């Protein structure tokens, strides 16, 4: 499979937001316009992380996913946020998403994770693992490195889904903290299908991340909205030993 560049769209109070260290959210705009442009730029996948699930259930998000379909969106969509049971996951797939993002809490605290896997098929799941080098088990469910390994051990060795690892400290930054990324990659040797996120905002950092075997995709966040033709230029300027998709 070719390596991918995904877009992470964090949602708060109904808006896409710029997210800084998972703490500060600044409003960027509605999903509709940004998704349209990301598709124009040939993004490989769109990951929607809805952080406003605490106030509204994922139900109202079904309407939103359906409305996205009216925009002639022919880009794979992955939705996460507020999924606590199989029926949530089923609704979201029916509404048009390809995959659902589930938090590590579901895997650690209950059997729901594996129920969803068997119901939808492992390929429809993304396990979200925020890595927080500063605070262990912070409010947002951040894991430090040995935490990460203990969670990974709960997964069957040939698990068919993907794991999205986002570095909380460089969320929204101009570039990731490569010292910590390298430390993480060492302890993730042998894993595969990892999606890296957190401060990936230029072709050089993304190219470097994609060159590791464990990494199948890099998810770009705030950078998407900062420059014109953001993703398109990224794809043009990435010189990796690894091939990426250039859409016609």
């Amino acid at each position, binding site marked *: 499979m070719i390596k991918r560049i995904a877009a992470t769209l964090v949602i708060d109070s109904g808006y896409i937001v710029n997210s800084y260290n998972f703490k500060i959210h600044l409003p960027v705009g509605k999903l509709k316009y940004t998704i349209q442009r990301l598709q124009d730029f*040939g993004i*490989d996948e769109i990951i929607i992380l809805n952080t406003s699930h605490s106030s509204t259930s994922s139900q109202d998000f079904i309407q939103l996913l359906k409305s996205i379909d009216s925009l002639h969106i022919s*880009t*794979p969509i992955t939705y996460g946020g507020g999924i606590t049971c199989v029926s949530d996951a089923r609704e979201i797939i029916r509404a*048009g998403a390809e995959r659902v993002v589930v938090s590590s809490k579901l895997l650690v605290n209950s059997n729901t994770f594996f129920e969803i896997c068997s119901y939808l*098929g492992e*390929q429809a799941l993304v396990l979200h693992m925020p890595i927080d080098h500063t605070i262990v088990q912070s409010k947002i469910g951040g894991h430090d490195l040995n935490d990460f390994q203990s969670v990974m051990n709960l997964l069957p060795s040939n698990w*068919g889904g993907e794991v999205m690892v986002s570095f909380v400290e460089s969320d929204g930054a101009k570039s990731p903290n490569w010292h910590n990324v390298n430390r993480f990659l060492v302890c993730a040797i042998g894993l595969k299908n990892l999606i890296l996120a957190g401060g990936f905002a230029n072709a050089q950092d993304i190219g470097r991340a994609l060159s590791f075997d464990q990494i*199948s995709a890099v998810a770009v966040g705030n950078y998407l909205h900062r420059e014109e033709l953001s993703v398109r230029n990224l794809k043009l300027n990435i010189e990796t030993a690894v091939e990426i998709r250039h*859409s016609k």
Partner: protein
Amino acid sequence: MKKCLILDYGVGNIASLTTFFREHNYIVSFGNKIEEIENTELLILPGVGSFRTAVENINKSGVATAIQDRHFKQKPIIGICLGFQLLTKESEESPSFPGLNIFNGFTRRLEEFSRIGWDKINFEDYENCPTNDYFYFNHSFGIYELQNFGIKAFAGTSQCCALFIENSTVGVQFHPERSQNAGKEFIIWLEKEIWNLND
């Protein structure tokens, strides 16, 4: 305007398929009645969900023979992802629930456990292929050893079959409705080369 029917078997991303085919000038309907299956110009077997649920619903609505009938009468069918697997004999995902057995092959768990992302498809000795572009795959089961004579293509380095066409029945493991421009051009290619369905 052409007509197409998305077969309702309790599973699949109905919304995105509807939009996708509407954009190709189809009047899209959704159902599981036998006469609907017989009259529509294109039958679509949607793609996301579990093999077992789909087979159960097909049997419950008793449409299996109508589908097989279309195949023998060269009436256009497209099976997308799970829809493609349903066309085979059976699937390792739900062994005791036999498929439609239109394609002589088996669906088994992927050697690579899952294939998520974009890949090119390479045809086996077939000339006027569609544009050589990437398509979106998202599956953990795949079809191997297809004995039928037809147009066959594989995805990247994988052994599982990415596309198989016999008569006017098309099975694709990838999602054209999620493959941006490549998906659009692929449907146009099918209409011209395989189904000669035009507005």
